[in-house]
C-alpha cells in the first residue's frame, strides 16, 4: 500500500506543491504549459482563411488606433471653420474623396468636425471598449465558472443564482440604466458591460469544469495532495482555455456593438469620439434626409468589419472546442 502510494507520487511529482526553492521551476513549468497550449490553438486557428483575414483586420485596426495621431489629418473634436453667424454651423463640407475641392478627405460634419479624423480616433474607443470589456468578462466569467464547477455545493449554488439573476436582465436596457446612473463616460459603459456580460462565460465554463473535475488526471492530482488552487490553475484552467477565448472574442464583438448602440441613443461619452457618437450626431443633424451619406456610412462599415472579425475568430475557436462542427 505504502509502496503504491510512493510510486503514484513519483509519477505525479511534477504536480506536487514543492518547497520555496522549487518556486521558480514551478512557475517556469506553468508558463511552458500555457505557452504550449496557446501555440497549439494558434496553429489550429490560423488554418482557416476567414480567421486569418479577421486577424489581419483586427490587427489593422489596432495599428490605426495606436498611430491615430499620425494618421488623422485634424483634431477629431476641433471645429474646422465657423458659420457666418458665429459658432453655430449648419452645413457640412463635401468630401474631397468625391472630387470636392477641400482638404477634408471624407468631408466634415454639420458641426465642422473632420469626419476622417473622427473615424480614425473612433477606432481607439471601439478597441478600448471591445478589448477591455472582453478581457474582464472572459476573465471574471472563467474564474467564477471554475470556482463554481470545482467546489460545487453552496459556493456553486450562490454563484449560479447570481448568474441566473443576471440572465433575467435585458442587456441593452440594463446598460442604459446603469450608464444613466453612473454617468455618460466610456469607462462606465465598459463597467456596465462587464457587470452584465460575464454571465454567459461563467455558465459555460462551470459546466465544463464540472465534467473536468471527474476526470482521472484531476483525481490523481487530488490524491497526490495538490491544493485546490493548484488544481484549478494548472489542471482545469488550461482545459477550459479554448472556451475562454471563444467567449472572449465574441465578447469583443458584443461590447463594440453595445457601445455603438448606447452612444447612438445619446448616452455616449461626450468627450470621446466613437463610431456610435458619430452616428448619433449624424442622426441629430438629419444627415439621412439630406443625403450626407459620407457622414454615416463609414463608421457603420468600421463597426461591421470589426464585429464580423470578432465573430469569425470566435467561430474558429468554436471548431476547436466542438470538433463535431467540423
Amino acid at each position, binding site marked *: 500500500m505504502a509502496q503504491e502510494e510512493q510510486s503514484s507520487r513519483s509519477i505525479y511529482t511534477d504536480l506536487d506543491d514543492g518547497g520555496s526553492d522549487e518556486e521558480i521551476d514551478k512557475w517556469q513549468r506553468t508558463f511552458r504549459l500555457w505557452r504550449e497550449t496557446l501555440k497549439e490553438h494558434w496553429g489550429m486557428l490560423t488554418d482557416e482563411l476567414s480567421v486569418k483575414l479577421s486577424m489581419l483586420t483586427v490587427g489593422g485596426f489596432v495599428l490605426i488606433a495606436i498611430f491615430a495621431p499620425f494618421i488623422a489629418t485634424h483634431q477629431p473634436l476641433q471645429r474646422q471653420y465657423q458659420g457666418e453667424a458665429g459658432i453655430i454651423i449648419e452645413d457640412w463640407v463635401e468630401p474631397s474623396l468625391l472630387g470636392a475641392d477641400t482638404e477634408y478627405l471624407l468631408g466634415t460634419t454639420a458641426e465642422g468636425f473632420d469626419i476622417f479624423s473622427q473615424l480614425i480616433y473612433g477606432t481607439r474607443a471601439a478597441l478600448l471598449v471591445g478589448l477591455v470589456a472582453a478581457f474582464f468578462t472572459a476573465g471574471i466569467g472563467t474564474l467564477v465558472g471554475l470556482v463554481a464547477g470545482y467546489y460545487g455545493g453552496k459556493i456553486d449554488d450562490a454563484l449560479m443564482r447570481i448568474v*441566473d*439573476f443576471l*440572465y*433575467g*436582465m*435585458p*442587456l*441593452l*436596457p*440594463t446598460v*442604459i*440604466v*446603469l450608464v*444613466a*446612473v453612473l*454617468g455618460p463616460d466610456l469607462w462606465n459603459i465598459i463597467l456596465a458591460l462587464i457587470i452584465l456580460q460575464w454571465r454567459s462565460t461563467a455558465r459555460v465554463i462551470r459546466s465544463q469544469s464540472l465534467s473536468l473535475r471527474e476526470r482521472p488526471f484531476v483525481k490523481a492530482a487530488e490524491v497526490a495532495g495538490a491544493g485546490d488552487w493548484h488544481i484549478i490553475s494548472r489542471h482545469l484552467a488550461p482545459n477550459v482555455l479554448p472556451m475562454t477565448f471563444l467567449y472572449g472574442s465574441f465578447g469583443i*464583438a458584443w461590447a463594440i*456593438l453595445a457601445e*455603438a*448602440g448606447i452612444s*447612438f*441613443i*445619446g*448616452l455616449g461619452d461626450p468627450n470621446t469620439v466613437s463610431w456610435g457618437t458619430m*452616428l448619433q450626431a449624424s*442622426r441629430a443633424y438629419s444627415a*439621412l*434626409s*439630406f*443625403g450626407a*451619406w459620407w457622414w*454615416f*456610412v463609414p463608421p*457603420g462599415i468600421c*463597426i*461591421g468589419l470589426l*464585429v*464580423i472579425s470578432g*465573430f*469569425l475568430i470566435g*467561430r474558429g475557436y468554436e471548431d476547436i472546442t466542438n470538433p463535431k*462542427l467540423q
Partner: protein
Amino acid sequence: MGKASFVVRRTLQLLVTLWAVGTVLFGLFRLMPGDPTSYVISSQMTQEARQELIESYGLNDPLHVQYIRFLENLVQLNFGQSFHSNQPVTDIIATYMPNTLVLMLTAFIVAYALGITLGVLSGWYRGSRFERSTVITALTARSVPTFYVGLIVLWIFGAELGWIPMSGMTSLGTGGQYSGFLDMVFTVDFLRHLIAPAAVLGFYYMGYPLLIMRTSMLEVLSEDFIDVCRAKGLKERTIMFKHAARNALLPIITAAAIALGYAVGGSVLIETVFAWPGIGREMVRAVLRRDFPVAQGTFIVLASTIIFLNFIADLAYGYLDPRVTYD
C-alpha cells in the same frame, strides 16, 4: 425529483428573481445623480408648493419606508406617476407595450418561418454553395448592428427613394382618427410604417434559428432512423420535412421562447431609429429626461418579460422532451 416539485421550485425561483430585480432597481434609481424633481418644478414655484410636490411623490420619507412602499406598489402593479406628464406609469406602459409587441411579433414570425426553413435546407444540403451562403448571410446579419441597417434602409428607401415613411407608426395627422388599436393596425398606412422596421429586425433575428436548426439537422440526419426511412423508399422531401426537421425542431422551441424575451428587451435601438412609439424608446426617453418612475416601470416590464419567458421555456422543455430529468 418529481414534476410537481420542479414546478413549485421553479415558481419560487421566479418570484425571488422578480423581487431581486425590483430591489436592485430601487437602489439604482436612488443613486441616480441630479434632483429628479428639478424637471417638474419650475423656478417660479414657491418653497411651499415645491415641498408639497416632493411630499406627494413620497421622496421625503426614510429610505426603508420608501422601499416597503415601493414593493407594495410593485405587487399591485402600481409604478407611480410620471414626473414629466403626471400620467400613471401603468397607463404609459399600456399605451406603448402593444406597439412594441406588434412590431416584435411580426418580425419574429417572419424570422422564424424563414430561418427554420433555411436552416432545414442548409442542414440537408450540407457542403453546398447554398449552405455556405446562408451561413455567411446569417453571420453578417448578426454582426452589423440592427440600428445601422435601419439607418441605411431609411436612407435608401426613405430619403432617397421615398418608398417608406421616415418615422413613426402612422402618418402625421392621422393619429386621432382611429377608434382603437386594432382599428389602426389593419390599415395600409400602418403597414407602410411597419414594413421597414419589421424587415430589418426580422433579418437580424433570422440568423439565430437558422444556425441552430442547421446544427440540429446535422445531428438528426446522422441518426439511424433516417437510414430506415431511406430504406423504406420514402421520398426525399418527406424525409427532410416530416422526419428529420420535425425531430430537429425541439431546441428551436425553447430557444424561441427565450429569444422572444430578449427581442422585447432589445427593441430599444430599432424603435429609436424608426421613431417607433414603443416601450423601449419610451424607456430611453424617460432615462434621458430623468423621469425615473417611467424608466423604472418600463424597465421592470422589459425585465419581467424575459424572466417569464425563461420560466415558460424551462417548463416547456420538460413537457416536450420526456428525457429531461428535473434536477
